[in-house]
């Protein structure tokens, strides 16, 4: 069973590898000649710029919050995670709208102060702008990881550093930062994958990257082969990143000494230092969450009477049930696979089960290509079989159905549900299982009576995390959605691309509100783990 799930999950990767053996068409040559360099350069720039920017703000914020005491510190701890609830593409529409000629900022300058601010000064629709948008919506990954690393670091080492006459700056760079490196790298690799997967932001800003290239090659130039070549390059890059990350994590293990770390005492900040730190954190929060949310609320206020109709409610319902459905599937699959691993203790099965979660690293557009093509072939075979038996054609059963969409979501988000459940199983340990077996219960009964109740919190968080990710998903949904099918994400995208940003805010607001719940939950989990 576990093997079958695994094979199915790996389908898109197989398809892409398989198609690579077809010889490249004319489109590919045209792309190599004209655009490939542009795609590579932009993707790389975006990747590096976003990583650097989010590392700087994320680590700085984490350092202050982990080590110093100042007013409102406890609130900032979780306030700074909230930007994760705002998908990057929504951040992009919001900022573009805020800063546009008819947006509130330029309007204010023009009408109240008489300044004409049109021109490059407030222009955000370019590569640095995309770095900024991706950076402010993704930096919490680095922030969360760096913060917990700083908090776990032994006081002793830092105190030793102070005693040896190093200031807090040098302590930070020489002691704390190197020790937090694996955690920061972990956060950055998550950011890198999100950047490579992004379609909404770069498309809207007119920045050509591999993701937009896949869409262009497949749709504008009508060459699925060229799209697959691009996908393959992107997949190789992602796997290289993953490999680098595990490799460097493996090498960088810092020992802290065996005695328990001293209880954690934060240094109180006073005077100008307090105010500098406070104003940094306040502005970070406002820029990454406060301002965009205020703008979205203002737009919703102005347009909800036009947008929120019965149709819109239908879209909400559909998005939610799609997300719940996918979540349930993923949780079941994850339990089946992990339980199989748990029972058999076979080494290779453990390794193989790790492969299943690679889907999260593959950009949505690539998964869509990798799933649509084989399913369409399957459909055509089924139709041929029906026809040869002289039955009526059943039509295209899979491709263009909700089935395909959910399948693709499962491939992409299995990791999201897999990890918390894996952690849950590991925490429970094997002894209860063995006890249950000794008492004569079957495997299945043990699973339902013992394991599942014990890990129900993990199951719940898995469900919730998948739920939010499905709700936000854009590129894959755009390609695979069936007839009459809008989700909140595609609705927001459609409206924004049709130059109706204010109207799109209604769908955005619901996505963000739903996203906030697991973000807060996540913070709780981190806190309790710390305690």
């Amino acid at each position, binding site marked *: 069973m576990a093997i079958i799930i695994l094979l199915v999950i790996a389908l898109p990767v197989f398809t892409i590898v398989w198609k690579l053996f077809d010889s490249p068409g004319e489109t590919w040559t045209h792309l190599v000649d004209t655009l490939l360099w542009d795609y590579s350069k932009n993707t790389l720039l975006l990747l590096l710029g976003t990583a650097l920017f989010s590392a700087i703000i994320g680590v700085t914020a984490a350092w202050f919050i982990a080590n110093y005491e100042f007013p409102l510190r406890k609130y900032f701890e979780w306030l700074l995670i909230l930007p994760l609830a705002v998908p990057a593409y929504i951040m992009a529409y919001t900022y573009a709208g805020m800063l546009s000629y008819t947006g509130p900022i330029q309007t204010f300058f023009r009408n109240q102060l008489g300044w004409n601010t049109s021109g490059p000064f407030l222009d955000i629709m370019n590569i640095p702008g995309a770095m900024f948008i991706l950076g402010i919506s993704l930096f919490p990954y680095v922030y969360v990881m760096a913060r917990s690393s700083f908090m776990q670091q032994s006081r002793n080492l830092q105190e030793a550093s102070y005693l040896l006459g190093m200031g807090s700056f040098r302590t930070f760079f020489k002691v704390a930062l190197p020790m937090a490196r694996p955690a920061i790298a972990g956060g950055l690799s998550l950011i890198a994958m999100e950047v490579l997967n992004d379609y909404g932001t770069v498309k809207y800003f007119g920045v050509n990257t591999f993701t937009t290239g896949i869409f262009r090659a497949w*749709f*504008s130039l*009508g060459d699925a082969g060229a799209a697959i070549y691009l996908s393959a390059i992107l997949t190789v890059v992602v796997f290289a990143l993953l490999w680098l990350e595990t490799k460097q994590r493996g090498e960088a293990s810092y020992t802290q000494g065996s005695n328990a770390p001293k209880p954690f005492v934060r240094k109180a900040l006073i005077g100008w230092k307090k105010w500098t730190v406070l104003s940094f954190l306040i502005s970070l929060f406002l820029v990454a969450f406060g301002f965009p949310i205020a703008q979205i609320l203002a737009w919703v206020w102005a347009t909800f009477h036009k947008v929120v109709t019965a149709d819109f409610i239908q879209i909400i319902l559909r998005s*939610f049930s799609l997300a719940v459905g996918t979540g349930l599937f993923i949780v079941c699959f994850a339990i089946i696979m992990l339980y199989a691993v748990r029972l058999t203790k076979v080494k290779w099965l453990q390794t193989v089960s790790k492969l299943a979660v690679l889907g999260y690293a593959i950009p949505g557009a690539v998964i869509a290509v990798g799933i649509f093509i084989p399913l*369409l072939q399957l459909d055509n075979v089924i139709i041929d079989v029906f026809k040869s038996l002289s039955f009526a054609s059943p039509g295209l059963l899979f491709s*263009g*159905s909700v089935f395909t969409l959910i399948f693709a979501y499962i491939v992409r988000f299995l990791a999201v549900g897999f990890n918390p459940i894996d952690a849950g199983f590991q925490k429970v340990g094997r002894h209860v299982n063995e006890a249950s077996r000794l008492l004569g219960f079957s495997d299945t009964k043990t699973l339902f009576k013992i394991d599942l109740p014990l890990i129900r919190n993990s199951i719940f968080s898995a469900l919730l995390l998948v739920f939010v990710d499905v709700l936000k998903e854009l590129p894959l949904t755009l390609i695979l959605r069936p*007839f009459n*099918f809008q989700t909140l994400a595609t609705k927001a995208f459609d409206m924004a691309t049709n*130059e109706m940003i204010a109207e799109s805010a209604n769908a955005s607001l619901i996505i963000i509100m739903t996203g906030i719940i697991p973000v807060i939950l996540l913070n709780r989990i981190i806190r309790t783990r710390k305690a």
Partner: protein
Amino acid sequence: MFKNIIKTTAFAATLFMMACGGNSTQEQEQVVNLYSHRHYEADQKLFEEFTKETGIKVNVVNASADELIQKLELEGENSPADVLFTVDAGRLHRAEVKGLLQPITSDVLNENIPANLRHPEGLWFGLTYRARVIAYSKERVDPADLSTYEDLANERWKGKVLVRSSENVYNQSLLASIIAADGAEAATAWAEGMVANMARAPKGGDRDQVKAVAGGEGDIAITNTYYVGIMLNDSNEEERKAAEAVGIFFPNQNDRGTHINISGVGVAKYAPNKENAIKLIEFLSQEKAQKVLAEENYEYPVNAKVSISETIAAWGDFKKDSINLAKLGELNSEAVVTFDKAGWK
């Protein structure tokens, strides 16, 4: 606990069925399946009206025309699509060349739609058209200095011209019309001259170009008429002010006329509901529907019996480039290559 899990699952499954039910209950009722690039509120209203009149339900897949054509092609003879609705003749032509459309004959359509706005053999039909015009700053440009598209590449407009990316199909069709009128060489020179004259690298949509003129980033923008129409009637005062800052100029009035493009439909080659498809297209070509398209979306109706909205009527009548739109489709790929060579982003 276990019971709770079952309960939750059952609840979610029911919800799920409810949500997906929409597309599996097509067995008995009359439907027409539409692949549409248009996502205007007005369209949705019209489809509801159509269902009310005929009892035929309209199913819509919204995506870009390129994606829809790709989908049609992959699905082949098993495609559920009946009608392809695009915002440009070039895409209809592409679908035609790929053999994705079938000819239909309808007296209603032939009567309602002028011959140059439909395919000679009935493979596709224009339902509305829009002109690609020059929006100039009322403050800084004397309209007497404006003449043709070709003139915008003239050095005296250096640093003044605003236009969106070449990825946009409206620009591709415009360049195709210039290739058809002036030849490939002159068209390449024009594209290069335009790039040299741009006030900034192309970005944003047509509305953004108009706003950039209002903001003083450049003096002249190329835009489709209905965008300005929408802006002039926007609920946001700033949008209205930006649109009021520009004047509309119809270029090439002394030669071939202003470039126009259609939003149009074709019946899919393997349409399972061909009769319904024709009914829908006929419905859209009739006065009632044409009026809605004209009034709510500020497009020019193809049906001569229908008057245009007041907003765009204020710009006056103009001479239209009468080239057969099929020709623009043929020249589309040449236009794309020309743009790439000229470095028009």
